């Protein structure tokens, strides 16, 4: 029997469910390790060496090195965990969220100040905007 997943047709959105959590377990636990200052320092000194301490896939490691958060999410990353990478890099949550939208930091900030992204045309994949 398969699980009911009514959320797969929401555009630009990955729901972090049990399957994604399984896929991203080590990626997210690596992120969690960055909550400790010592680990942040070791990661910054040699990112690749630090990542190699974790049983993550090569794809996941490359996505982290490239700071490609959308790719990290496809590979099972959850935004609250990925935010620890942003904190390590000194990025705000708004900078992180904006980086996934294809907009510049200013464009994203302006969009938020003007009331945010409209839900119109953003409810279903393939919906006409």
């Amino acid at each position: 029997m398969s699980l009911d997943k009514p959320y797969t047709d929401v555009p630009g959105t990955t729901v972090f469910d049990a399957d994604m959590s399984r896929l991203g377990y080590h990626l997210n636990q690596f992120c969690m390790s960055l909550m400790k200052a010592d680990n942040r320092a070791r990661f910054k000194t040699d990112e690749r060496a630090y990542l190699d301490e974790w049983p993550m896939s090569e794809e996941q490691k490359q996505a982290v090195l490239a700071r490609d958060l959308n790719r990290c999410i496809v590979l099972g990353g959850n935004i609250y965990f990925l935010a620890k990478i942003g904190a390590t890099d000194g990025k705000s949550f708004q900078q992180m969220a904006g980086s996934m939208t294809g907009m510049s930091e200013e464009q994203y900030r302006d969009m938020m100040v003007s009331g945010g992204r409209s839900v119109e045309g953003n409810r279903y994949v393939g919906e006409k905007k």
Partner: protein
Amino acid sequence: MAHISASVYTSHVPAIGAALDLGKTAEPYWQPVFKGYDFSRQWLKDHKPDVVFLIFNDHATAFSLDMIPTFAIGTAAEFMPADEGWGPRPVPKVVGHPRLAAHIAQSVIQDDFDLTIVNKMDVDHGLTVPLSLMCGQPQAWPCPVIPFAVNVVQYPPPSGRRCFMLGKAIRRAVESCDEPLNVQIWGTGGMSHQLQGPRAGLINREWDTAFLDRLISDPEGLAAVPHIDYVREAGSEGIELVMWLIARGAMSDVNGGDKPTVRHRFYHVPASNTAVGHLILENN
């Protein structure tokens, strides 16, 4: 006998805490957000409870993927503000109320809700930002706080219906406590926001407004709204709003009593990536 006198609902955006801690509250960007809580800070001074039962979610801080409790009640004597990667917020430690927390835990579990009991937990912005918004920057928080963490990080969170029923069980638990405690219940998180993917930045003022309306006048109907509606209409992180239904379920009117008085209502876009919503309901 202990009783629930009021419920408070508020967003818990981390950037609000940062703005407060860094002294940015008077900046034009932040000024309207904090102004929306001027009334609330005075109200809390005038209606100081003995205990706040504070419903929030942990954001991969105290709970990693090691353990994912759906409902976790903090029964410790104190809880330290967590280091979320930027260092702990410069706010007072949170003093718990172990006696009432243990009483509620035992009562609610016997009432068929399988809570996880947590005796050691750091608390993140989900808990400390609502305290800051409601109390300002005191040397110590005005009263003990019972932290109650809900999983909304890994899907599925508990349903709105389950949250609403849990609120009723918490009310029964509080009312079965012999001590004459004045308890407020706070539901936090939301409103519409999405922090991930190409759809990040989603805000739905219309949906949020309807949510506030129904939370006041039709909470039972609102509790039937399925998760997918939150995700689609209010963003993937807007689903935090199910936590507000726990606080609402603990109010008198949905347990055979009178309608609450709406003491305060506030809505503002944006705080960082998020729509800020806030309500104060007093029991009559």
